């Protein structure tokens, strides 16, 4: 099965802390920071490392400050199992 890994970059200086992204995140990986940005708003931060790159947060963000990245990693599949080999053997894999 392919594994999907995502990541987001938040422009914290433009964040107004409305939490709409946190409410729409299916993985619950966003939360308000206790720190403030230069405008005096608590900004949103990613607290979990389980992002799937679904873009839900970026779609509902009124200020368009979230960049979303997604990568699909394919697992290495087993081609063949070789057992009870006696003597020399040559294996050629065409991929």
């Amino acid at each position: 099965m392919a594994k999907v890994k995502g990541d987001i970059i938040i422009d914290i200086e433009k964040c107004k802390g409305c939490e709409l992204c946190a409410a729409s995140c299916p993985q619950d990986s966003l939360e308000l920071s206790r720190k403030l940005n230069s405008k005096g708003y608590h900004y949103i931060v990613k607290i979990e490392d389980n992002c799937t790159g679904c873009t839900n947060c970026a779609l509902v963000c009124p200020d368009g400050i979230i960049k979303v990245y997604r990568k699909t990693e394919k697992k290495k599949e087993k081609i063949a199992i070789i057992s009870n080999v006696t003597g020399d053997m040559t294996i050629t894999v065409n991929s």
Partner: protein
Amino acid sequence: MNEKTMTEEQHYADVIAEESICTNENLVFEKTNVLTDTPMHYCPGCGHGVAHRLIAEAIDELDIQDKTIGVAPVGCSVFMYNYMDIDMTEAPHGRASAVATGIKRVLPDKYVFSYQGDGDLAAIGTGETIHTCNRGENILIVFINNGIYGMTGGQMAPTTLVGMKTTTTPFGREVEVMGNPLKITELIAQLPGVYYCTRVAVNNPVNVRRAKKAILNGFKYQELKKGLSFVEVVSNCPSNWKMTPVESNKWMEENMFAFYPLGDLKVPANQPAAGKGE
């Protein structure tokens, strides 16, 4: 020793570079370049920001940035021309559709849209709106309905729901005194000049995707020159509804959607529907 630490650092740097997926080839969502980098002045959680972005994305997708002229209204979105990297003008209160008519008639090969709120389009500009729609001008009207006058401090608008508290109706809107809320989208959907009429919302990712499709269709139908496209966006106003953004979206789903049901009101024949599910 020093050499060894250097190589270790390099090794970790390589590992980090490998693990980070924030590269351009993996980028799946970014703010479009049609929106400028100016921070928006809207309150936290306001639906105007999403509506602006959807219009910008539609312009970007159709590649009509240099052929689009927008008309900003009076209201919270009066500074819309600061946020969109296209040609825009500013109309007097309620007259955005009339100004858009003039621009479209002088420059018929341009894509013209007006962006209006409910106090602008449904109260002061009712006459202009209805006659623009009845004449069937080839423009797109994006109507933001949040049931309140946002910029002036939360007064009652024609679209305010029955029982909704505003600064001019502190005990809730009464039908005997203030009349019934106005469903202007249903009103203009009957007019023969209107080619496409739909109601969308921007409260969750599903509705945002549908809203984008509707706005995209509105721009596309201008090429056909068959009439006006009207997209109503049911939005929120956290500041004047006196709620947090998340609460206001929930309140909107429970109360606004009951009176203003989402979906297409008028879809041209042989054209794909946008407001309904994918």
